[in-house]
């Protein structure tokens, strides 16, 4: 392509103008001193389709907080501004971004990125700069190996607990044999590794145990095998990306087990829309939250989310993201931005959240029990454990 001189001048001129506009914007932003909160988010790459449940929750919180006049920082309300970068679904990218957020952008607070590998990857960065951050969408036994101090994990959906609790729940339903199919991605693989020994210990026969890759496009082969095994329950350790495929093909092949567990996906609003309400009905999945009166703010959060986004929040990940924001809010209102004080308060306080009380010992939330929900009449109901159940388990009647 030919580049004439005048073209080049226009080009350089355009760039200069753009830069000037940018610096002008930055200067005026500094003048009103908003509170700058940074985080990385998988906007592109293989996790991008999972992150909106978390990102939407952050957005909702910022909107509500700013409508109240800002976030309470040790008694002074300051408007909230997000500093977000796309980590392209790569943990090593998130590491660079959090370093940059702390050292270069000099943000006031940090929010969590999406997913376990990202939390694990940035933990050393938080440690290095002594910058406390409340995690949310991470769940793995590996979290317990993280050095306590600057990161906390509110989730109770830890794979070893899931294995034990799911087995206990299957026992109460008199399940004698199961088929386990698992996506090979880390979280579901980890659940499988803890679940299968528990099932064996409890005397539940695993008639089929199989794995599949995340890019699976047809499950006929696997599901035919499961159908022939004639089991009492199917435990599909699926990710959102393949939970719909499982449901559609389980329907085609007539997998009519009354206990259908689908690990990740059904807690998100897209699931019933994708497979049809009748098919979604009765599916059991992982979540430890639902809107209920005794958890203050849970109904309000649910209503506000539905109003803003036109669909239900993810009962697992949106709820966790909101809990992490509540913990941060309560802390900063008391301590201001003093990092050492923040760290001490988060480590020692019992917080009230939309998921009830939360208290950390080391990095882990020791109050919230591991739980399961079931889709009943189009709503997610807590069905396990009995101590916090909002409804009783109902046998699934086909798809």
């Amino acid at each position: 392509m030919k580049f004439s001189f005048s073209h080049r001048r226009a080009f350089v001129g355009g760039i200069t103008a753009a830069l000037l506009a940018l610096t002008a914007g930055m200067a005026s932003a500094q003048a009103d001193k908003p509170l700058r909160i940074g985080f990385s988010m998988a906007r592109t790459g293989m996790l991008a389709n999972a992150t909106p449940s978390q990102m939407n929750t952050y957005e909702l919180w910022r909107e509500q907080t700013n409508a109240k006049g800002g976030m309470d920082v040790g008694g002074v309300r300051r408007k909230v501004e997000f500093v977000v970068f796309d980590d392209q679904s790569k943990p090593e990218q998130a590491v660079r971004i959090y370093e940059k957020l702390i050292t270069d952008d000099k943000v006031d607070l940090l929010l969590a990125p999406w997913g376990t590998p990202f939390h694990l990857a940035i933990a050393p960065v938080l440690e290095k700069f002594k910058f406390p951050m409340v995690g949310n969408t991470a769940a793995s036994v590996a979290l317990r190996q993280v050095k306590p101090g600057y990161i906390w994990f509110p989730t109770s959906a830890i794979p070893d607990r899931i294995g034990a609790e799911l087995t206990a729940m299957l026992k109460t339903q008199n399940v004698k044999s199961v088929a386990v199919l698992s996506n090979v991605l880390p979280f579901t693989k980890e659940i499988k590794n803890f679940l299968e020994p528990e099932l064996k210990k409890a005397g539940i026969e695993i008639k089929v145990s199989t794995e599949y890759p995340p890019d699976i496009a047809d499950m006929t082969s696997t599901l035919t095998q499961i159908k022939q095994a004639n089991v009492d329950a199917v435990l599909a350790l699926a990710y959102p990306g393949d939970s719909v495929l499982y449901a559609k093909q389980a329907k085609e092949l007539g997998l009519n087990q009354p206990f259908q567990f689908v690990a990740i996906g059904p807690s998100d609003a897209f699931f019933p829309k994708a497979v049809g309400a009748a098919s979604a009905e009765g599916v059991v999945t992982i979540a430890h939250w639902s809107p209920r009166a005794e958890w203050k703010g849970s109904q309000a959060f649910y209503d506000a989310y539905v109003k803003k986004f036109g669909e239900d929040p993810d009962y697992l990940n949106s709820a966790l993201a909101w809990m992490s924001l509540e913990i941060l809010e309560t802390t900063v209102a008391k301590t201001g931005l003093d990092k050492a004080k923040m760290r001490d308060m988060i480590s020692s306080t019992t917080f009230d959240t939309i998921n009830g009380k939360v208290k950390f010992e080391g990095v882990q939330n020791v109050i919230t029990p591991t739980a399961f929900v079931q889709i009943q009449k189009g709503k997610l109901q807590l069905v396990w454990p009995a101590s916090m159940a909002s409804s009783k388990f109902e046998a699934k009647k086909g798809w």
Partner: protein
Amino acid sequence: MTVLETLLSGQLLFAALVTGSLYALIALGLNLVYGTMRLLNVAHGEVVMLGAYAAYWAFTALGLSPLLVAPVVAAAGGLLGYALYRGIFKRLLADSSAAQVQRMESNSLLLFFGLSIVLQNAAALVFTPNNRAYNYLGTVYHLGSVSMTGNRLAALCVAGTCCLLVAVFLGRSVFGLATRAVIERREAAFIVGVDVDRVQWLSFVLGFASAALAGVLVSMLGQFSPFSGFPYTIAGFIVIILGGLGNAMAGLLAALLLGVIETYGVALTSANMRSMLLYGAFVAALLLFPNGVFARRAAAR
């Protein structure tokens, strides 16, 4: 399940046909554009993805049946292809010296790669990266021991019919003859009076339209996001390597073969072997049949 039972299972045959027919439709478009212009369209899967979104929005926002809007979506895809051809490629293809043609082949890879990234991220911005799926024709039909969901049956019928129609059209019509001439000897075709420009833009239109149509069908089966186009590009490339570059009819057979390899291979081994089976077939075809598994028969005809 014994090996014999697996091989005789009608259910698996159905799955293999559904997979194979979709691969065939996707590879068809890729093959036409490559064959006539030596352009490697790595953004092909993104057109499939856009077609899927079009069907999704038509169904969820407007309540229109995806099968009814399929021709419209295909036409829109064709239009996009036409615009790209007129806007970018016509000028680049006009200089048909040997050196230029070679450079074009590698440059097109970069150009389409860029286009693919732009389309992915534009879709992520406009449609959000959420997973999308909808429930359409979810009734299950039983034929003997085989159960078939309506949407999979419909996908098989539409994809199969379209592929056969295009194959017959290319085999019988004057345009098809001209296309094959351009594929085999571009310059010679030009000399004997084939309207190369027309063949090229029609190939572009047909290629993009079939990709968009495949997108409509794909959207009825599972879920998709702005980033789910790429695997289809890969599957398309494997099919045309198996069938022979620029050879449409052999491509159909190769797509069915790939569907069979994938479905039965997974049934006999494990779902974890899927990628290994697909790429294994790809590498084996390149090593053993560098001109395509079905190439010799096609050449002898």
